[in-house]
């Protein structure tokens, strides 16, 4: 028997929200002296369990604030679970909106290098890929210019391209199929299908149920951090549409 690629067992995640006023040392010191605790603990995820086997595509659905992004962050190792266990075999490529983390003073080329290396590639390997990535994103002419001269759409395209040229075992996709114009969206959807076919396992978050229907092999439905349903794509989507 082979182990699942991703294994999530009874995971809880608690967020501590700092009360608006306690963002300064002075206020924190005063409230500490008065014995007031301004932190509020919020449960973002409660008792989540699922596995993703080799070749599976798991889609996570639910309304805003259901905990979808938090769950992705747990699998991407960005957040540690408060309790429970997360196990992932293999390298993880997060296809989150990378564009938001780009440095606007650096050129497109330098951002490609930096993020490629951040995702675990060697500098020389990335340098060889820069031209290809820029061309794919349709940014060959602008690639030496600083990112602040780019439009929002161009940054988003670059973000997708950097992530899409990353070969990894586990793919984490957060709502980035809606980037760019219709033509680019088609292109990125095709690329995504390639990546899913080439990888070990995929986790996908989307509000677009048609995308989920066409890509997912199983679906996890979250509501307010709780696991409502886990099962086959059509089964869960039908229940979700009725709800």
């Amino acid at each position, binding site marked *: 028997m082979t182990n699942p690629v991703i294994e999530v067992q009874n995971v809880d*995640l*608690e*967020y*501590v*929200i*700092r009360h608006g006023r306690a*963002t*300064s*040392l*002075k206020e*924190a010191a005063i409230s500490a002296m008065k014995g007031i605790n301004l932190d509020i603990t919020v449960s973002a995820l409660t008792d989540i369990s699922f596995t993703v086997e080799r070749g599976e595509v798991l889609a996570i659905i639910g309304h805003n604030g259901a905990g979808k992004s938090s769950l992705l*962050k*747990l699998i*991407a*190792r*960005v*957040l*540690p*679970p*408060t309790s*429970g*266990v*997360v*196990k*992932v*075999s*293999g*390298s*993880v490529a*997060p296809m*989150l*909106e*990378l564009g*938001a*983390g780009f440095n606007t*003073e*650096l050129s497109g080329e*330098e951002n490609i*290098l*930096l*993020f490629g*290396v*951040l*995702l*675990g*590639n*060697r*500098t020389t390997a990335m340098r060889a890929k820069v031209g290809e990535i820029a061309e794919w994103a349709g940014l060959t002419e602008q690639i030496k210019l600083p990112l602040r001269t780019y439009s929002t759409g161009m940054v988003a395209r670059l973000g997708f391209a950097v992530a899409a040229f990353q070969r990894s*075992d586990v793919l984490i996709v957060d709502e980035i199929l809606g980037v760019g114009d219709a033509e680019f969206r088609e292109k990125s959807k095709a690329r995504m299908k390639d990546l899913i076919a080439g990888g070990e396992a995929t986790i996908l978050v989307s509000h677009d149920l048609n995308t989920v229907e066409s890509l997912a092999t199983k679906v996890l439905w979250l509501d307010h951090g709780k696991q409502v349903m886990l099962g086959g794509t059509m089964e869960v989507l039908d229940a979700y549409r009725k709800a």
Partner: protein
Amino acid sequence: MSNIYDSSARTNYFKELTTNLWDQRDLISLLVKRDLAVRYKRSVLGLLWTLINPLLTSLILWMVFVHIFKARLADGSQFAPYVLAGVLLMTFFNQAFMQASESIASGMGILQKVYVRPHVFAFAAAISNSVNFILGLFALVVVTIMVGEGISLFAPLTVLVILCMLSLTIGLSLMTSILFIRFNDSKNIIVLILQLLFYLTPVFYPKDILNETVRLIVSLNPLSSYLDIFRFVFASTGKATLFDWVYMFSTSTIVLLLGLTIFKRSWSKTVVMM
């Protein structure tokens, strides 16, 4: 499978961190290069610009203390290289420490999306400032020769001071970076403390003009030992005692280990708060 992540696994933190830093050497060198490129590209004078600040500060201190207060060093050596050495080392300390502290806070956008050890940002920021310090040493050589003094044969030992300073500033910055992320007014307090430290280090005054109590306080400031050693190995100015060497090596090691430990404990709580 090559890499397996298990959130419940108990791993050796320090061993894992060392491996991780080595794996991330490309990232660190890229961050250092980026930092230096941004700094030197933005000004017309480029490289010279970063030297102007310590040179001007030293010039002012030199004029005030030599020509107004008529300060003299006990062993008769020149004041100008003495001040410049002090200013260069303190600039290294201040900037490496501040930039390393800020680097983690400003890297939060990346750290919330991609799994990367936050430490790499602090290491990169400190290392890029050590490059600035080394460039400053060329200015120090020029000034030392201009006043008719020589460079010591032991000058290459300055590399030990640099390594200890890196370890010290990285350790300190790991502690303060958590403060920087959580409290937006913590920077003001740190800046005040740095100013106090500057006056408690014999940058522009000789230690022997101080009375017993003040001299003891100044000697207990670890930076005084770093500076004494730096001046002694670089141009045989003043003296470095065995206490200075022991103090430098022990503070740099202890502060780094302490910083790593504190950071490890607070980081997971802090990243969840964002």
